């Protein structure tokens, strides 16, 4: 029996999206497999840092057809200026992913701009712009230990989980860097956020080199960082509200991500039996997951409760899996067991674990996860107002349960701040500025359009209605897109009083491949990228993905 993908009404709910875990389809995993499979070559083309680790470095990556470089600048930063907020104006380290290998003139140009980040200007040679701050707690502790010939304290180090923490990674034309269109046809960068993931992976290599360099300048007999610690450490990232509207503004892309993941899950659940090597790989992935969860630290009480439940769920799954995997359609039996018995965290962890042993069955789906958002632009204005109203009822039927007349349902508004041009969330009934609301209240606006259309002659073409009432144009466009792409919409109220933006952020970050989600409020969280994954220099040397 073929199992259908889980429907959008189940998948696209904020609570479940906020319990997402990375899978083997996540973007950094896809990148690691490509780099290994194509045997890219890594080189430290320049490493010009002083005794304190300040200066510049260039790491080059040779793909079968091109060279890319990480250009890294490390500069002195007063502790009082080190903030993760996007409003910061100075950072410990700053980076670009450069298309090619920069010559001295290009490096000079980059030196004058990259440390300034948003205040600099960039060209189409720069694919990604990023910056990172040091972990105040761990960066110097690691150097001190290495310089003494010791290893840093494992528990303390892994509690933080990184040496450098990115506070922004910009691509796709921002501040003048290359538009994604410029490289979207290159196979190695065509998947979503592949240039960004490559940049972060290279920053991780730079972070290890940086601490070892400073330690070695202090003591030529300094220790190298232990290979196990290197593997466990990732690049930290602080992600705030700015990322949340992205998912709403890219409905076709979001559909493609979720459709790929749900198709993968359906393929695995539909498999008639479980090969013994797949069962072993599943058990190994589960054990690794349990070990990782044991190290997962959060200060957020809600997340801490969710993790306690997750630990219990994983124990239950590890006890029951051997029995369930002997049933007919064993992977489906396992999933249905998780669905019946586990928390949302546990269910979504189960999804990730089910996908893990099945690369040959599902990895091709990575090729379907990009999107050209322009395909959602054309409005079919030949549709009648009556048919459009019916379409809204079909696509946004889930929203009928929300009563937007109540203050709690209409409590917030998304806006852009004048100070930093960043997305913010305001309280509609307590703050000024609601008249400048961004069009992200999707459900409310769709229901409102349906009501307005009820007053129109049902036979009127939509084009005529929109010519008279252009204020509904974006709502009609979006609804027609969502009708074609069923996983396009987050099926929850994005302006509700109890909406937690971190659920949106985690959903996106899990697709990147992030781990160790640590909410610091309801609107920003810490994560690590590439923790537990091999280094790019290891992969390039060995040509094997772990």
């Amino acid at each position, binding site marked *: 029996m073929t199992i259908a993908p889980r429907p959008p009404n189940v998948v696209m709910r904020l609570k479940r999206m906020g319990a997402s875990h990375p899978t083997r389809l996540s973007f950094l995993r896809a990148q690691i497999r490509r780099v290994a499979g194509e045997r890219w070559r890594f080189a430290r083309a320049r490493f010009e840092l002083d005794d304190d680790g300040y200066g510049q470095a260039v790491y080059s990556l040779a793909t079968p057809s091109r060279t890319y470089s990480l250009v890294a600048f490390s500069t002195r930063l007063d502790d009082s200026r080190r903030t993760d907020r996007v409003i910061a104006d100075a950072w410990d380290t700053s980076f670009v992913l450069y298309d090619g290998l920069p010559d001295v003139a290009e490096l000079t140009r980059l030196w004058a701009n990259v440390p300034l980040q948003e205040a600099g200007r960039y060209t189409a040679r720069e694919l990604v712009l990023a910056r990172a701050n040091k972990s*105040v707690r761990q960066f110097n502790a690691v150097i001190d230990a290495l310089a003494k010939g010791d290893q840093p304290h494992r528990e303390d180090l892994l509690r933080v989980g990184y040496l450098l923490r990115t506070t922004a990674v910009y691509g796709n034309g921002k501040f003048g860097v290359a*538009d994604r269109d410029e490289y979207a046809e290159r196979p190695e960068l065509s998947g979503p956020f592949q240039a960004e993931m490559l940049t972060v992976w290279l920053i991780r290599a730079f972070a290890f080199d940086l601490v070892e360099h400073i330690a070695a300048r202090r003591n030529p007999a300094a220790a190298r960082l232990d290979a196990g610690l290197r593997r466990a450490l990732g690049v930290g990232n602080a992600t705030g509200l700015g990322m949340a509207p992205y998912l709403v503004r890219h409905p076709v892309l979001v559909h493609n991500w979720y459709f790929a993941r749900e198709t993968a899950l359906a393929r695995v659940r539909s498999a008639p039996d479980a090969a013994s090597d797949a069962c072993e790989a599943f058990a190994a992935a589960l054990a690794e997951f349990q070990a990782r969860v044991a190290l997962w630290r959060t200060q957020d009480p809600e997340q801490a409760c969710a993790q306690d439940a997750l630990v219990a769920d994983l124990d239950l799954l590890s006890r029951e899996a051997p029995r369930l995997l002997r049933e007919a359609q064993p992977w489906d039996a396992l999933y249905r067991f998780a669905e019946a018995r586990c928390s949302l965290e546990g269910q979504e962890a189960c999804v990730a674990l089910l996908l893990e042993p099945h690369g040959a069955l599902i990895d091709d789906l990575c090729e379907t996860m990009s999107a050209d958002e322009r395909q959602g632009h054309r409005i079919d204005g*030949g549709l009648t107002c009556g048919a459009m109203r019916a379409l809204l009822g079909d696509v946004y039927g889930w929203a009928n349960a929300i009563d937007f007349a109540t203050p709690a349902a209409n409590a917030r508004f998304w806006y852009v*701040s004048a100070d930093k041009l960043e997305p*913010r969330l305001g309280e509609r009934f307590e703050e000024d500025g609601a008249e400048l609301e961004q069009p992200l209240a999707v459900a409310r606006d769709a229901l409102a359009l349906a009501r307005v259309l009820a007053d129109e002659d049902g036979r009127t073409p939509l084009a005529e209605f929109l*010519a008279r009432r*252009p*204020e509904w144009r974006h709502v009609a466009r979006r609804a027609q897109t969502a009708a074609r792409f069923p996983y396009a919409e987050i099926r929850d109220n994005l302006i509700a009083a109890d909406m937690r933006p971190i659920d949106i952020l985690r959903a996106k970050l899990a697709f990147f491949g992030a781990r160790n989600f640590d909410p610091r409020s309801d609107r920003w969280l810490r994560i690590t990228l590439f923790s537990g994954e091999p280094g790019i220099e290891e992969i390039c040397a060995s040509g094997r993905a772990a």
Partner: protein
Amino acid sequence: MIELSLNEVDALAARAARGAGFSWGLADDVGRAARLLAGEGADWSASLLALLERAPRLAPPGAREGAPLCPVRMAAYLNDASTETGALVLRDVALPVWFDALLKTEGLWRVETDLLAATADATLTRGASAAPPGARRASIWRSAYDALNALAARLYVPESDRSRTRGAGGSRVDED
């Protein structure tokens, strides 16, 4: 001159159009057309400023007389409508260069008009015009850049003490 990526052109033009009073959906259309004009190497920014300045006085589709026709609203109608066929002649289209670009984004109509005129008649026939070879970057004079950003800034909400502490979820020096 400032060099811009085409995504920056698209975003800046859309925000400026919204700031000048176009609806969100029409502003998105303007952004896409700006990207297309910039890709053709046309001077998109000066003509956009002229369009946004005149927009409040331009006529919507179906208006009987008086003001020149709004190219944004008319092109939106033609891009949406599937019932219009054959050839059409439109009198007094404002900023025909924008009318042409907006129609090119969907590729359903070919336009004959005076692209350099402030207002001109336009003859339309069904069918796509050949896509021009695209430039990948655009440039803009500082004065136009500032003027478009000033229009875009009408959408931004000034920070208050409350929003500074609450809106983004807390500000502090990092302790990790």
